[in-house]
């Protein structure tokens, strides 16, 4: 029982930490980093993609709230 409670608490912590109030932020960060990697592999300079995606998703998150 203690183990189950601990696992529930552990899972809740990571859910709150990663998903928080808006799951689109975590999804955008993961997609932006994966795209940065893909573009870099194709030889395209992609350092700008993560900050651009970050600003975009925060703007959308604010517009929804």
């Amino acid at each position, binding site marked *: 029982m203690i183990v189950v409670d601990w696992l529930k608490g552990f899972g809740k912590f990571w859910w709150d*930490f990663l998903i928080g*109030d808006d799951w689109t*932020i975590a999804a955008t*960060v993961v997609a932006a980093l994966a795209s940065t*990697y893909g573009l870099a592999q194709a030889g395209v300079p992609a*350092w700008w993609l993560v900050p651009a995606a970050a*600003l975009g998703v925060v703007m959308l998150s*604010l517009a929804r709230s």
Partner: protein
Amino acid sequence: MVAIVIGVGVTRGWRSSLLGAGAGLIVLLAVSIGFGTALTAVPIDDLRLVIGALLLIFGLQWLAKGIRRVAAQGFAGIHEEDIPPGHEHEGVDWTSFVISFKGVLLEGLEIAFIVISFGATSNSLTPAAIGGASALVLLTIVGAASHRAITRIPRSVLILVVGVMLSSFGSFWGVEGVGVDWPGGEAAIAALVGLYAAFALSMVAVRRRAVPELAQT
């Protein structure tokens, strides 16, 4: 490193932030002493990617929260002493713990890599280690000295500032972690801080203009 620990400490509580920083320091010392010169074999890019992504996700959530709160309360905001009782965390606040732990561990590892690389290549590991340890002590003293000044800043503004800092470091480490170099190297961190800060201030201004009553607070 110090900025992250102080920012998290002031906004979410000192105990868990310092516990996380202490745990990060213990792991860092254990790894540095245990691995020695073999430390340079640790896959730092993988660490940068994981820690950068986590910091960026959390930093952007705080950035959005900070913009909403500062737009609603103004830059005068509410001070820590104005917060009603019952809002402080009981026990360990794992979010503060994890953020401080990761910040100290990753930046500490980077410092340890530099110390070991320079020390080993010039056959002067002891002076390099003393230099690294002195820098760490100096940073801690500066952090402790600035703590009182930081606690006078309203909590809503601090959330915004910590959101800017975590988003900047998270973006920098995440992108470096996937193997992409920033133009200007480490100087890009300052540019990212400027970018996120300018964005946050303009979003606050837009939201306050959209609701005229807010602009008078």
